[in-house]
Structures are given as structure tokens and as C-alpha cells.
């Protein structure tokens, strides 16, 4: 691929998109669900080296391109797949080889089937090549999308991860650089992974880090405030900034703009401070309603525009309160 050419290419495609906070709390994922006839614009934003951001859907999609082929991190919703593929082809004509999922929510796995079916995986020995790209994720993503024999799965098997891990990490070497899925347990969900592109020096975070709102903690599916803060601290551990706490390792959040370590530090500080305030109010014996009425996030509420598919201050405080009370991810 011609990187110089790619840097000046901005593919703008008008599409329908769905974005629903409520959908995140549902057990059954519907990747084709659209809750509004909203118009989204998919834009290619160069991140660093071989990694690009496909922005415009309700969740960010990252793509790494090179001689080995194409690797996606998350696949957005199914209705965006065609536009994502078109945008990708302005960057690379090489085969789609991998889709990595940061977690199991429908806004992140809804395009798995469509993107994977356009790809290829190479066999070896006594196996033959397959006409689909491999899908990698934490084991709990497979658990969320599939079901035991005789029970209804959340999604057809074409959407499921083809390879999973249950250890601290899973790694491949692709397009000339190590690529690592790093487990951050009990954070946004019970199956979150960060994706580290070591050569490009980029971390794709999924929804454990957003620039557009408070964290969305899916308590029903294993998310906890302490696990989420641990995940943010893990990103800070991995990232090495350039001069004056800027540049260096770049961070692609689940929603919002491309960042560097400082942006994550500011977000981590905010989330930790609010967690500590809620913890203090719990120690004073306050109920959830009393804690919400005390508005422990009131100095940060002004940073975010409500009503855009993000957690409201009350929803965020409730998730913090409930997971602190239950001792999740202590």
C-alpha cells in the first residue's frame, strides 16, 4: 500500500448507523438492530504507522494494513460492513485475515460475519485454506455470543470467535509487527481485551476508554468500576509518551478521538476520583438514591453532552455504587 497516498485519502461514505446504550445491557445481541435512521459518516483517520481509525459509527473500528493483509479491531454493526469494506479497500487490496473483538457487545461484533466472509485464512499441513478471516477474542466473548447445545445462541456461529484465549494475552505477528490481545478482566464487561500494535505503537482499547462520555459499565455482564480503573491503569502502563507527555504511544478509544497517554491519564484521574467519592459516601451509610442526590460527579458532568448513547451521570454512579457494594474486581 502506498502510505503517502493513504494519508491523503479520506473516504467519506454516508450510511445508516445504530447507537444504543440500552442495547449494551441486553443479553441477546442483535447486530442488525438499528434504533434510528441517523446518518453517519465513515472517515479514515490515520493513527500511526500501519494503523488507521475508521470513525463515524457508534463505535470505533481500527484497521491495520500491510503486506500480510488486513486486520480489524472490532467490526461495528452489520449495516456498516459494506462501507467499512469500501473504506478499507482505499487503504489496501490485500486479503482480510483477522477480526479481533475487544468485547461482545453488538456494536462491536455486528460486522464479524460480513467482514470475516470477505477474508481468507490459510491452512497448512493436512488442512485447507478457509474462505473466511479468523476472529480472535477473549473466551468470554465466545461464551456471550454462543450457547450450549440445545439452547439459543445470541448470534449465529458465523459471528463467533474462531480462536479464543483465557490467559493474560494472545499474540500474533502480522504485517511485520507483534500484535497482542491483552485481557483486562471485569472492566467494561467480563471479556475485554486491549489490542497492542507493538511496532506501530498503538493501543486500541474498546469501550474501557472513551472520550465522549462516562464509562459504560455493563454490570449484568461482569463489568466493575475497579476492573475498569485497572484497565485504564494498564493502558497507562503500556503507553510510553513522547516529549512533554505527548505523542509516543497513541490510543484509539472505543468512542471518540485518537489520544495519547495524557488523555487516558486525565480520564483515569476523573474515574478514580468519582469512585473514591462514591466509596466515601457508601462508608457514610448512604443509599444509592442518596449518593446520586449528592452528585459526586457534578464537577465532571459539564464535560459531556448527555443523550448521545452514553451513560448519564446517574447511570454511571449507579454502576459504581453497585459494583463497589458487591466488591467486584477488588
Amino acid at each position: 500500500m502506498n502510505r503517502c497516498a493513504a494519508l491523503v485519502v479520506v473516504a467519506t461514505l454516508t450510511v445508516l448507523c445504530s447507537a444504543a446504550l440500552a442495547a449494551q445491557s441486553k443479553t441477546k445481541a442483535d447486530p442488525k438492530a438499528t434504533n434510528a435512521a441517523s446518518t453517519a459518516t465513515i472517515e479514515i483517520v490515520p493513527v500511526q504507522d500501519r494503523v488507521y481509525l475508521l470513525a463515524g459509527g457508534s463505535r470505533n473500528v481500527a484497521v491495520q494494513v500491510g503486506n500480510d493483509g488486513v486486520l480489524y479491531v472490532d467490526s461495528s454493526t452489520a449495516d456498516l460492513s459494506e462501507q467499512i469494506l469500501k473504506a478499507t479497500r482505499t487503504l489496501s487490496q490485500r486479503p482480510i485475515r483477522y477480526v479481533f473483538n475487544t468485547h461482545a457487545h453488538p456494536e462491536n461484533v455486528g460486522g464479524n460475519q460480513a467482514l470475516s466472509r470477505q477474508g481468507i485464512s490459510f491452512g497448512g499441513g493436512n488442512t485447507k485454506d478457509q474462505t473466511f478471516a479468523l476472529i480472535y477474542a477473549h473466551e468470554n466473548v465466545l461464551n456471550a455470543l454462543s450457547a450450549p447445545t440445545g439452547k439459543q445462541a445470541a448470534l449465529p456461529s458465523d459471528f463467533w470467535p474462531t480462536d479464543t484465549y483465557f490467559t493474560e494475552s494472545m499474540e500474533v505477528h502480522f504485517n511485520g509487527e507483534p500484535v497482542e490481545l491483552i485481557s483486562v478482566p471485569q472492566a467494561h464487561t467480563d471479556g475485554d481485551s486491549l489490542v497492542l500494535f507493538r511496532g506501530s505503537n498503538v493501543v486500541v482499547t474498546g469501550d474501557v476508554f472513551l472520550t465522549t462520555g462516562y464509562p459504560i459499565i455493563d454490570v449484568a455482564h461482569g463489568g466493575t468500576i475497579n476492573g475498569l480503573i485497572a484497565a485504564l491503569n494498564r493502558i497507562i502502563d503500556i503507553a510510553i509518551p513522547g516529549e512533554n507527555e505527548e505523542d509516543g504511544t497513541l490510543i484509539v478509544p472505543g468512542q471518540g478521538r485518537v489520544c495519547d497517554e495524557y488523555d487516558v491519564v486525565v480520564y483515569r484521574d476523573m474515574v478514580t476520583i468519582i469512585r473514591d467519592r462514591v466509596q466515601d459516601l457508601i462508608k457514610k451509610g448512604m443509599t444509592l438514591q442518596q449518593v446520586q442526590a449528592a452528585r459526586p460527579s457534578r464537577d465532571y458532568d459539564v464535560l459531556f453532552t448527555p443523550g448521545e448513547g452514553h451513560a448519564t451521570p446517574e447511570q454511571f454512579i449507579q454502576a459504581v455504587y453497585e459494583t463497589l457494594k458487591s466488591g467486584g474486581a477488588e
Partner: protein
Amino acid sequence: MQVTRIGGWLATMLLAASPAVLAQVDLSGTWGQLMHEDNAERGAGPDFADYTGLPINDAARLRAESWDAAKWTVPEHQCEPHPADYAPHGPAGLRIWSTVDVTSQQVVAWHMTHAWMVTTRTIWMDGRQHPPPEARHTWMGFSTGKWEGDTLVVKTTHLKEGWIRRNGVPRSDRGTLTEYFIRHGDILTLVSVVEDPAYLTEPLMRTWNWALHLGYQIAPYPCSARVETERPKGFVAHWLPGTNPQLKEFASKRKLPAEASRGGAQTMYPEYQLELQKAAVPPAAATNPAGAKQ
């Protein structure tokens, strides 16, 4: 310095009186900062809980009251430079130079290096648009400029979250900056206006001055973060609401009513002096009420 309403009027009138021609004053050179103003902002910085003259809202005040200087012991905070809107407070000697298109001989961009941590910003003069919202935010932001008479007017967006006073008063990443660079012979004046829909109820206007200094040199300022104090992993320095024992120190030391130290748009204006005369001044003692530090 903080400019009062009258000062703002004067500045506005002076700018309006400038001839509307495409004058281009040469700003190039090395400039030594005149440190004759804003003494409280220099050196060690302002007192804790001195928010006087800042048009902040309640949210900004709570963030400032939760701020703990122990922040600077955390490695990931140690190498933060001043953002573009605070950088002129310095110490801020300046080096200014331009990039000139060789064919048209037009200035494509102005560049400025600040002495403190050697931050460098670029002000684009070629008419380009500001980037979309999903573009990165940086310490210096994205700046475009145009000449209004002999005044270079600069608009800056895409700033990282920063501060408008070094005692924890925040400026959000939604904040924007408008600047007016005015050269009078060997004196350079900057009028700066910060707007922030998150934390300011009115624009914050400040000015600084520099003198042309032909021998001025900017020294390197490498910064390497180090663990200087053992902290738990993920430590975030802050005070829980109601526990910061430092909040009354400034008002007590200056014999000000506590309300005056808490800032707000009203404290920017001369009329507020009349309000101060009505307010009770607290006794000078009692600066350290009990409070458990987070």
C-alpha cells in the same frame, strides 16, 4: 494581568481603530518576557484556593478544591508542559519565526517556541480549516491566524485539557483561545481570551508583554518522569469534598472575605469592591481545619 471591563473596552476600541488593511508586521525575533505583572503567578505559583478574578463556575471550583499538589509526584503527570493558553505566563521568553512560501513570499505560518519546557506552536496563515472533532488534541492545539490591521489575530482549538491557574483551576478540552499579537516597536503585547463552555461563565481575558532581546537564548528542557515517592499503583492525588484543609489559607492571609477568594465572574469587575466592603473579613487564624487527606 486580568483586564477589567474598562480595560477590555479599551483593547476592543484600539483593535477596532486599526486600519483594515493586510498589513503584516514582522514578529520574528527573540523576546524576553517583562515580568512586571501577575507576580502571584510567577515562581512557586499562586496560593491554594486563590480563585480571585476568575470567571469560574461551581464545577470548576469543586475541581480546584479537590486538587492536590501531590499530583506532581505521580510520574505520568511530571512532564506536562503549560498548554498554549497558559504558556505565556511562563517563564516564557519567546522565539518567533516564520515559514515563507518561496514563490509568493507570503508567510505560510508563524512559529513560536516558549522557554518553559520548550513547547513550540504553529499558527497557520494559509487559510486552512481547523480539523474535524475526531482529530487529536495537543498541548498547543491547532491555530490559524489572520491580520486585522497590524494585529495578528489567532484562533486555537483542539487543546488538551489544561489549567488557567496553577492551583488546580481547570480549563477543559472544549476550551478555545483567541489571541491578539500587537507589536509596538521593540515591545510585543499579547491579549489572550480563553473561552470554555464547561468551566467558565464568561471569557477570561489576560495580557502579557515582551521586549525584543537580541541575545536571548532558549535552553533545552528535557524532562524525564521518575518515581520520587512510593505510591500505590494507580494513585490519584485529590481531596474528597469538604476535607481540603488549605482552602481558607489565602483568604485568611490576605484578610479577604472567604467568598472573594472563591472567584466567579463578579470578582473580575471593579463593582465587586463595593460588595467586598459589605462583607465580613474572617479572623486571621483557623487556617487548618481538621480533614482527612485522601
